[in-house]
């Protein structure tokens, strides 16, 4: 029962053969070799599988691939802009603040932090903690993640993203 879906992936028009039970993460991995969104808990509890669909973060392990037909999908690989080899201010800030250890959860945090700063360019600690309460980091880099997001907010204000 395969069907073809077409969608915009990181700025590029693409198509994929999928089955109804395939989720977004496995299609990104299998068909497009994008491994930044990755399954961990499989229940939408951890945020490791975060992907932006039409600009909104979703749990890619629970999001059926069929639903992205016609949508615009952005993954961490293109968060600095399509075709870009540079890093976004959020990614730079994560490095400078040492906001990760093993890195498995990091793409999810980067995408959520980006979405937060798009909505609120100058969040306080409480706003950051509330916004990221659905992302888990077993290495416990939370204090550094909060610091990174505040740093990223300063970077973005100083140099607005085009």
């Amino acid at each position: 029962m395969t069907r073809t879906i077409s969608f915009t992936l990181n700025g590029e028009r693409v198509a994929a053969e999928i089955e109804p039970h395939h989720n977004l993460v496995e299609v990104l991995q299998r068909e497009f070799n994008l491994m930044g969104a990755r399954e961990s808990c499989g229940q939408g509890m951890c945020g490791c599988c975060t992907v932006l669909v039409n600009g909104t973060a979703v749990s890619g392990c629970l999001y059926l691939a069929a639903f992205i037909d016609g949508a615009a999908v952005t993954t961490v690989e293109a968060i600095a802009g399509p075709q870009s080899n540079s890093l976004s201010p959020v990614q730079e800030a994560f490095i400078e603040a040492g906001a990760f250890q093993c890195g498995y959860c990091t793409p999810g945090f980067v995408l959520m932090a980006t979405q937060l700063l798009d909505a609120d360019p100058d969040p306080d600690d409480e706003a950051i903690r509330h916004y990221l309460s659905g992302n888990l980091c077993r290495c416990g880099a939370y204090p550094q993640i909060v610091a990174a997001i505040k740093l990223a907010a300063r970077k973005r204000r100083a140099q607005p993203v085009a």
Partner: protein
Amino acid sequence: MATSMQGGTSGAQVAGPQVGRSLPRLEAREKVSGRAEYTHTMRLPRMLHGKIFRSTVAHGRIKAIDTGAAAALPGVYRVVTSEDVRKLIPEPYYGPAFHDQPILAVDKVHYVGEPVAVVLAADPHVAEEAAQLVVAEYEELPAVFDELGAADNAILVHAELKPAGTFADLKHLKGRKGTNIALDFKLRRGDVDKAFAEAAHVFEHTFRTQKCLHVALEPYASIADWSESGVTIYSGAQGPSFVRTEIARLLGWPENRVRIKVPYLGGGFGGKLYIKLEALATALSMIARRPVKIALTMEEQFYTITKHPSTFRIKTGVDSGGRITARKCEVYWNGGAYADIGPRVTQKSGFTASGPYDIENVWIDSYALYTNLPPAGALRGFGIPQLVWAYESHTDMIARAIKLDPVEFRRRNVLREGRPHATGQIVENAKHEAALDRVAERLNWGKPFDRGSGTLRRGRGVAMAIKAVISPTTSVANINIAADGSTTLYCGTIDMGQGSDTAMAQITGEVLNIAAESVRIVPRDTDVTPYDMGTLGSRSLFHMGHAVRLAAEEARDKIKAMARDVGEPEGSNIPLPELFRKKYGMQAGNIIGTGIYKPDYVPPDPATGLTPNVTPFWMCAAAGAEVEVDTETGQVRILRLINVVDCGRPVNPRIVETQISGASLMQLGFTMFEKMHIDAGQVTNASLADYKIPGILDVPAVMENEAVEARQSNGPFGAKGVGETATFCVSPAIANAIEDACGVRLTELPLNAEAVFRALRAQAGRPLRDAS
């Protein structure tokens, strides 16, 4: 010799000191851009996926396995049971301490969740669906779950003990029958009975810890690609050298036909040590003659390896001056159905069970026990957090009972440098007292403190601990300098987030006077990276750090020799590319330096457990907590958590700080809420929806992390490991603060609201009935 490489281009600049720099992790860019590779997302051409069918009973004889319906599902390649495995691997048992764990269950199952059969299919969804169609019939046998229950040997988990022979102190257990005790470690110092008889006060308490899980966010995954000529295994493994040895033994092959490649690890925490899925993936690839991947779900991690539950009976004699004169420790470790590294935990942690105190008379019995639960192994601390939980709670209870300030009582009894530890080793380079002093200073200990009001009561507590590193162990490193002067490091330490690659590059750079950023570290591959015992127990920075230092020093000496060879004057700083050209007439050749490090060690006397040299270094920690207890609900809010460690000289201060805060937050989960709930051997909360780990909202309002001024005199550039240190003291510091706040003493983890509320009600003479 003063040649430096920046970004791979040659030049003669001097890089300056590298140790002590807070440079970002070398692999940072790959991690923030989602491009770092993990085994769980890897694929190979023609690869099959294996999905595991698991036991539903805790102890039983397998009467029949019906794979018919599963095999008939379209798209299924094959269904595999132990019968198939044994045709290729007649003795399919593995393990680091005991060869007790079968690749797939043979004749019996020993815990709920044990792998019984595997479905192979090209499509993982097909394999998953088919695995649910396998049916097994069991003759159920009586099962034992509790470590104290297991100790009386009424129900036996295994008929016979099968030590691996790797460890000398386990050999005497070979062939032993009628017991669940996989190791009984003893330490005897002085005469505890006499000291108890003469003591002014004797205190005895029992403490327990619960079963917890590592919860690496990258679940376990291994891919094996077998052929007649050799097998290549991709695995998220903390100890690829051990995996190679064990797979070679199982196959009857020399090690050079077994290759282990390790991508980045999405967390390890001790779970990915030794051998986990590698033997199964290898057997399946032999059967299928295609690459086979086993990638677990989060739920399946709960059936793979866990933290040891423990029961610790501790008894202490104190004289009229508040001096501890004797301590007796009986520790029971619930190792689950297979030994994994439990017997090592039992001994290597067991001998520090009397704590960082100077005690004349010590008696320690530490028992590794088999039970019918998912196996237990190492989890960030190798047993030490369980011990410190008990002895530092006990220490506080004694101080309160004899009306001594808890910090003062600790200072009065602390084990100081130059004094013998319980094992007999003279303690050096151990700054646990300095750490305690810093915690007390930060807490303004002895000064007035806001104790809250009404139903919100505030309190504070401290704890202090030491840990010995697992010894003796070996690390080997190679450094290869190419003719353009660029440097490549080959070392088997696995960077699972602790920043070891960055630290090793800093050590390399320090010796060779090059920027750490310019050092390339070869991805772990046992075909090219030399032996390392494993990334465990905070051993790597010390052991591999020395091996890397020695390798770099050898390379540096060879550079000097080459310069002399080509007629350069002594002290010449000829750029390396020029030196190579002078030597070989073109851009050609290499300089290879090798370093091997193994510390001295004296095995403990089997009768007394005493030895003058049990560890090359001590990890030392203290913690302080301020809490607010809601006496109406039992809710505990952690207002402030202070973690102070002695890690010698920090190689990378910022990474050290993240190690301290990360370790302490992980232990906060084990302290406050994490617990595997088990009903008749079945884990009933095997998911992140039901098993909560710390999230960003669980971070204490104030966290302070500090490494005391220190220098490990025998460490590489004064450094020693720090991955586990900040886990040790968190649990007792919080429990001590809870008693300080509201007068109730908890003796079992976790310290959740229910436990606090029950204790408050019991204290008020209105105990709650147990939930049925």
